[in-house]
């Protein structure tokens, strides 16, 4: 948990859950697992507020609780990890992906689940149906069965999963009813690690839910009616057969999808549309057979690939073979050949693809920060591993003085390292080789931390801009509210223009430029998050490969 990560997590918690949760969350991040008493004592917040914040954190999966380390009697401990919080940056991308794959219904399902943390299937279906009905024309409403279908499809493709059952975490009572015990839970209620969602055998099984009905349109008539609806909603205690089964978004599956998208678009950029279609087919065929941490997909024969190509891309068999050979020979090594049977067995090298994508990212960072000649030196060092100063100048074909300058700039930014190779055991400077080198993994980690710092700076700047112009924003909000109420009650255009003139022209300009700045900062955050995703996937893939 680096300092940059903690700072970014704090800002994200503040924006989405309030300052109180930010305080509790950052304290937990910094100090590791703690129990409730210590937490209250160290943060100095009152008991009820701390409890509430912890409830919010647990609800959204940010914080996990487990039995204390000192044995069955000790108080429960709460542990936060920064991964969950950093994912908040990527929520818009998840929602957008659901929209492209499953339409508006899927989009709203994912959005609801992300906002609430976890929900039962029935409540999700109802809320989404209501929201969809709001936007439809009068007289139409959304049927629950359509929404349930979309939900089931999302579960089938593993984008949603059940929340793991709370197996006797910190309590002496038995586990909650209607859930089979996870295979890892021992008899003693102290489990060393909280059960993950995957260990639950039924985690992708849709429960049998009796849900019939249509979405309700929220009536915007008198207040009394709204109150009555609110009361009715609380009286609505019909059970739908899925009590206690909560669903959450399966982030890993989305990440696999993003990774596949990145590989396909890289192939499309480098080798053309047809090659990318071939790679897309290969990835689609191996979606279910590949584990998330696999180095490469299962081998696929050329015959299978030929049969599974989409109909719009009907290419002849020998042409397919040529494309596959091209893909294998490409230095980026996206596709590898694993054998000769069945017309040639081909695999997609996932980890190598990720490494190449990360390398391309780092190279482009160097290029944009220091110029194309420094980038040339950097790429040279990546390929040749260790080079002396003289060799760098020769290979890069850059005059000595400039090459020296560029190397020292890169060295001072820590993108390039010096490796000493002594000739004599006393490391005498005149008798030691000094070689420049680039290590891809530590460099990637360093850039990842830089990205976190960048996003944190962007968020802080945005908060500063909003705070600066708070008065102006409030005034404009009030004017909009007045305008809306006037229009709803059918006022004349003169009154409307009179109210509009309450904002002067210069204020309008200020507001417009403020809006522009905030939009720029927000979309910059989204873009930096794409880089974060690539670098994170690369770092995680090397971690699993090493272990």
């Amino acid at each position, binding site marked *: 948990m680096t300092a940059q990560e903690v700072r970014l997590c704090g800002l994200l918690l503040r924006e989405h859950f309030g300052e*109180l949760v930010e305080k509790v969350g950052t304290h937990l991040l910094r100090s590791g697992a703690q129990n409730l008493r210590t937490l209250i004592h160290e943060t100095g917040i009152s008991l009820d507020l701390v409890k509430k914040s912890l409830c919010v954190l647990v609800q959204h999966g940010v914080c996990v609780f487990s039995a204390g380390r000192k044995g069955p009697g000790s108080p429960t401990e709460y542990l936060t990890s920064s991964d969950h919080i950093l994912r908040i940056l990527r929520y818009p991308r998840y929602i957008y992906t659901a929209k492209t794959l499953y339409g508006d219904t899927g989009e709203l399902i994912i959005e609801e689940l992300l906002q609430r943390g976890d929900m039962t299937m029935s409540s999700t279906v109802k809320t989404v149906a209501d929201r969809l009905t709001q936007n439809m024309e009068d007289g139409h409403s959304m049927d629950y069965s359509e929404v349930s279908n979309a939900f089931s499809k999302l579960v089938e493709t593993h984008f949603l999963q059940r929340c793991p059952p709370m197996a006797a975490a910190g309590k002496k009572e038995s586990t909650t009813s209607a859930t089979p015990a996870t295979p890892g839970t021992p008899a003693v209620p102290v489990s060393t690690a909280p059960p993950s969602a995957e260990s639950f055998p039924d985690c992708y099984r849709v429960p049998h839910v009796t849900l019939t009905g249509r979405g309700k349109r929220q009536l915007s008539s008198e207040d009394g009616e709204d109150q009555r609806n609110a009361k009715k909603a609380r009286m609505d205690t019909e059970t739908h057969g899925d009590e206690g089964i909560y669903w959450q978004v399966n982030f890993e599956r989305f990440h696999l999808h993003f990774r596949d998208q990145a590989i396909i678009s890289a192939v499309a950029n480098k080798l053309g549309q047809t090659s990318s279609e071939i790679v897309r087919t290969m990835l689609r065929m191996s979606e279910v057979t590949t584990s998330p941490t696999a180095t490469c997909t299962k081998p696929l024969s050329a015959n299978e690939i030929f049969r599974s190509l989409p109909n719009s891309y009907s290419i002849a068999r020998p042409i397919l073979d040529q494309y596959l050979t091209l893909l294998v020979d490409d230095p980026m090594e996206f596709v590898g050949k694993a054998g000769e049977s069945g017309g040639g067995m081909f695999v997609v090298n996932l980890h190598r693809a990720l490494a190449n994508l990360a390398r391309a990212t780092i190279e482009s960072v160097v290029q944009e920060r220091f110029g194309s000649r420094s980038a040339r030196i950097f790429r040279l060092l990546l390929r040749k591993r260790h080079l002396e100063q003289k060799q760098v100048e020769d290979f890069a074909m850059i005059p000595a003085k400039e090459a020296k300058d560029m190397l020292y700039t890169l060295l001072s930014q820590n993108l390039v390292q010096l490796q000493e190779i002594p000739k004599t055991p006393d490391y005498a400077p005149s008798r030691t080789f000094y070689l420049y080198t680039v290590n891809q993994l530590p460099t990637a980690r360093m850039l990842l931390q830089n990205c976190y710092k960048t996003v944190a700076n962007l968020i802080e700047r945005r908060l500063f801009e909003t705070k600066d112009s708070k008065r102006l924003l409030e005034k404009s909000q009030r004017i909009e509210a007045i305008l809306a109420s006037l229009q709803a009650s059918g006022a004349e255009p003169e009154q409307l223009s009179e109210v509009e003139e309450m904002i002067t022209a210069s204020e309008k300009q200020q507001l417009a430029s403020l809006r522009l700045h905030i939009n720029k900062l927000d979309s910059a955050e989204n873009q930096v998050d794409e880089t974060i995703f690539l670098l994170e996937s690369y770092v995680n893939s090397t971690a699993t490969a090493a272990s």
Partner: protein
Amino acid sequence: MAGRGRGRGRRLMTFSVEAVGINRGDSLPPSIQQPTPVYPVMEQKPLPLTGGEEAEYLLALKQEFRGAMKTLPSFIQPAAALRDVERYSDKYHSGEQNDALMDWTPDWKRFPKELRVRRPATDCVSAVSRSDRVQSSQKKKQVKEKEEVLLKLETLEKKEERGSSGEEEEEQGEEKKKKQEEEEADAEEEYDEEEFEEETDYIMSYFDNGEEFGGDSDENMDEAIY
């Protein structure tokens, strides 16, 4: 030791200068006496942001998501910001904000027992005197009685509209609701009408500071407004 004779003055370094490429006569860059500037001048300007439909849609999604999270009960408001001057109407306004917090009752089976909050936290934050507590319990009884009256009126209305088939369900629902209310005593206080708060005879708009611009358009323009 080796460098003592030669490197007298400024140029004494731990590594051999030739190997790294600093020849004699070259001027070293001036030594830095203070921290580097916070916003150094960039030689290369950064690339512009990618625009396009997808980026704009993602931007809209992000801003909507943030706005939606602020309205959810999981957004815990800190204690109401102290205003510059204490106003008399603060006493009557403080009850309004907390409704959103009470909407969310999580499934307590999935949380450890110690996190269960039985009473709302509203009382803890602001200084509560004993008299306030006594008054609030009295007020609760009043509120309950008045709510029962309201409920009866509503059920009568509904009976007229719907007929007997819906009646039984509603009665059962009412009983259930009353039980729920008794269990979650504090959580279910609903202030339907503003008149029932805090033994005042005035409606809440009496305590308006006038800070909100009342943009109500009067429909009846015939009568003169004084």
